C-alpha cells in the first residue's frame, strides 16, 4: 500500500517549508499541498485514492473550514481509506493538543515551526513503521 502525504494549510509559505522538510527528512518526495480543507477532502474521496494510505499534516486554524471540521468530515466518511493525521498549529494552547490526541487517527501534534527531529521521529510511529521500513 502506498503512503500519500498531504500538507493542508492556507499558508503557502508554510506548505513550501514543510515540503522541503518532508523531502529533507525522507518522509516523502512529493507531498501534496492543499490550501483548504475542502480541497483535501476532495482528494481523499477521489478514485485514485484506492489502495492508498494517507498521512495528513493538518493545520487547525484555517479560514472557511478549520482543521477540526476536516477531521470531523473524515470521521463521517462511509468507507474511508487509511488516514493518519498530524495536527499542526501555530497555537501554543494545550487544550488544542488534548483535543487533537482524543482522535484515534491523530498520531501526532506539532507546533509551528515544524522541527526536523519531529518529522524524523514520526517514522517510528507504529502506525507508519510499515511505510518506512528498509
Amino acid at each position, binding site marked *: 500500500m502506498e503512503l500519500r502525504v498531504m500538507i493542508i494549510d492556507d*499558508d503557502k*509559505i508554510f506548505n513550501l*517549508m514543510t515540503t*522541503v522538510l518532508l523531502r529533507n527528512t525522507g518522509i516523502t518526495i512529493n507531498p501534496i499541498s492543499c490550501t483548504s480543507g475542502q480541497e483535501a477532502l476532495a482528494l481523499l474521496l477521489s478514485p485514485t485514492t484506492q489502495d492508498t494510505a494517507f498521512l495528513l499534516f493538518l493545520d487547525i486554524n484555517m479560514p472557511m473550514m478549520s482543521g477540526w471540521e476536516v477531521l470531523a468530515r473524515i470521521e463521517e466518511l462511509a468507507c474511508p481509506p487509511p488516514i493518519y493525521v498530524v495536527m499542526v498549529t*501555530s*497555537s501554543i494552547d494545550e487544550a488544542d493538543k488534548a483535543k487533537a490526541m482524543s482522535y484515534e487517527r491523530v498520531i501526532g501534534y506539532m507546533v*509551528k*515551526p515544524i522541527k526536523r527531529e519531529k518529522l524524523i521521529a514520526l517514522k517510528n510511529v507504529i502506525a507508519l513503521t510499515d511505510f518506512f521500513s528498509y
Partner: protein
Amino acid sequence: MIGEQHYSVVFQALPIPCLVLLPNAPEFTIINVSDAYAEVTNTNRCDLIGKGFFEIFPNSPYLSDTIWKNIFDEVIRRKKPCKVAPQKYAFPTADVPARLDVKYLEVVNTPVLDAEGEIEFIIRSMTDVTDTIYHERFLEDTQHAARIGSWEVNMARQTVTWSVGLRKIYEVASNYCPDFDSTMAFYPDESDRQKIKQAFQKAMKDGTVFHIALPITTAKGHRRWLSVVGKADLVDGTCIRVYGISQDITDTKRLTDLDHLERTILELNAQRTTSLKAILADYLLGLEALLPGIYCSIHRVKDGHLLNWVAPSLPLSYTSSLHNLPIGKKTGSCGTAAYSKKRVIAKDIANDSRWAAYKHLALPHDLKACWSHPIMDSGGEVIAVLGMYYKQVKTPNHDELIIIDRTSSLLKTIIESRQNADLAQETTAMMAQGQELACFGNWQRDFETDRTTWSPTLCDIYGINPAAYLPSFEHYLALVHPDDRERVMHIVKQIHQTGNDTVFEERIVRPSGEIRHIRSWARLLTNGDNVPIKLIGACLDITETKQAELTLKNLHAELEKHLKEVEESEKKYSDLFHLSPQPMWVYDLETYRYLDVNAAAITHYGYTREEFMSMTIKDIRPPSEIQKMEAAVALSRQHDKLFSKGIYKHRKKNGEIIHVEVRSNIIKSHGRKAEIILAQDITEKLYYIEAIEAQNKKLQEIAWMQSHMVRAPLARIMGLVDLIQHVPESGIENSELLDAINSSAIELDDILRSITAKAEQINLT
C-alpha cells in the same frame, strides 16, 4: 274331817272371791258369799244373800245388757266350768259409793251337779287380774312404742307364738297363726334365712343368746329391718323353747346407714381426689339405696335457670328435658323450690298446679311424685336443688322429711365447702402466680414459735436459695442495704410499739451484689390480750419501677432541657427570620398566601406587612414568571422536605423587576404545610457578571489572536530562518526565502497593531 258347818266358814274365808248361786234363772239367787267377794265388790254379805244376782248387779258399764243378762247361759248349757276372759268391772268404792272402782276380773262359773247330773249350784269365782292386765297393757304399749314384739318357738309342740307387737311389725292380721316356715318366709334373702337358722341351731345347742339384724318384707310388702335377740331354754341339755324379742330398727337402721353414708361422703369430699360430681352421684345412689323407690337428682341453679348436674338413676332423656329451664313460681318442684327458696312437696305430679306445664315431661317416665328442696349457700343464695322422685303418689313421712333436711344440709356443706376449697385453691394458685408475675412475695414471723417463713417468690426477690437459707429477722437485716438498715430497724421498732400497719421502701443487696428496691407492707397481729403473736408482711420488687421512674425523671429533665433549647432555638430562628438582612417569608403551599414576612422583605419589596399578609406569592411575580413559580410550588407540595434553589424574577411594589436567587425549604407552620423563602436580590450581581463576561470575551479574543494570529507569522519566520540555517539545499532561492521572511514580519506587525486596537476597546473599570 271337818263338819258341814265348817265348810261354810272355810268358804267364807277363801281368798278367792266367790259367790254361790242357785241356777233358778233368771233370778240366780245368791245363797252364799265369800268375804273376799264382798271386799272386791265393796258389798256386805248380808246385803247379798237371798237376793237375785241381777237384782244386786243389774248391769255392767262395760258390757251390753244382752251380754250381761246371759253371762250364765253357757254354764247352764254346757254344765261345765266356763272361764270368761278377763273383763272390766266397775264397783262402787267403800268410801264414796258414787265413785266406781274399775277392776279387771277373770271369772269362772263352775256348775255343781247333783247325783242326777243336774246343776244344783253355780259357783262364780273371780280372780282379780287388774295388775296383770295393767302390766300386760303397759308391756304392750311399751313394745308398740319401741316397735318391739316378742316371740316364742315351742320345740315340744312345734308352735310359734307372736305378740301383738310383733304382729304389727310384720303387718299381719291379729288372728295370723305363724309357724317356723312361714316366719322364715318373711326374710327375703336366702343368706339371711341361713343366718337365722344357724343362730337358732347354735342357741339350741349351747343355750347362748344370739343377736342379729336382718331385713324382712312385711305382709304388706314393706321392707323393714329387724334386730332379733333370742335365747334357747334348755332343760337337761334339751331345748324346750327358743324365745326372744324382735325390734323394728328400720328407722334406726336407716339413720345409722344414713350416718354411715354421710360420713363416707364427707370423708370422700375431704380427700379432694374425687370430683364433686362423682361424690354427689355416690351420695344420691346411697340415698336411693336407703329409701327404696326413690330417684334423686341435683340441679345447679345459675342465672335463674336449672342446669343438669347429678341424677344417677333418672332417665337421661328426662333430665335432659329439664336442662336450662327457667326457675319460677310454677316450674315443677325443683324450679319452684329454687325460685321460692322453700321446700316443695308435689305428692301427685299429675294433679299439682306447679307441674301443670311440665308434667308431660315427668309422667311418661312414670314419675308421679317429686319433693324438692333448695340448697342455699351461706349468703342465702340458691346454688342447687335436690329433687326426690317416686313412681307412686306419695307424701313424705316424718322420717323422710328428716332425711330430706339432713341431706339438704349435707349437700350445702359439701357443695359450699368444695366450692370454697376450689376457690381457695384457685386463689392460692392465682396468688402464687400473681406473686411470681408481680415479683410480690410475703413473709410472716410467728413470735410464739419464733419461726419465720418466706414465700418462694420472696426468696427469688432476695436472690436466695430457700433450701439453703433459714429465714430469720437477723438474716433479713443482713440483706438490707447498709445505708437503709438503721432506718428499717427503726421502722420495725415503731411497728412493735404502735401496732400500726406500715408501708416503707428499702433497698436490699442480693448475695450476687445486685441491689434491688423493695416496697414492704407490715402488720402486727395480736391475740385477745393485745399480745403480739405474729408480724406479717409482703414485699414488692419495685426495682424496675424505680429504674423506670429514674429513666422517666431523666427523660423529663432532658425534655425540659430540650424544650428550653427549642424555645431558645425558636427565638433564635425567629430572630434569624425577622432580623435577617435578606428578605424572607413563609407562605402556605396550598393557598400561596403569605403567612409571615420579615422586615427586610417589607423594606426591599415596598409592601407593608398587612399588604403582604393579604397577598399571595403570585402578586410579586411578573406574569411571565407565574408558570415557572407554579411548577416550583407543585414540586414542593410533593415533598415533606425539599431544599431547593433557583433564580426568579420578582416585581417590587413600585413595579421594578428584580432578579432574585431564591432558597427554599418546606416547614410546618401552625399545622399547615408551608415553605420558607430566602430571597436574595441578585439584579446588580447579574449586571456585574454580564460586564465581566463581556470583558472576558474580549480578553479571550486577544488571547486567541496572540495564540493563533501573532504566532502564525512568527512561527513562519522561525521556520524560514531554520530552513536557511539547516537546509541549504532546499532548492529554494535565498531571496525568495528572505521575501517570505519580510512579508511575515509585515504581517506580524499588522497583527500587533490590530491587537493593540482591540485591547483599547476593553473597559476594565
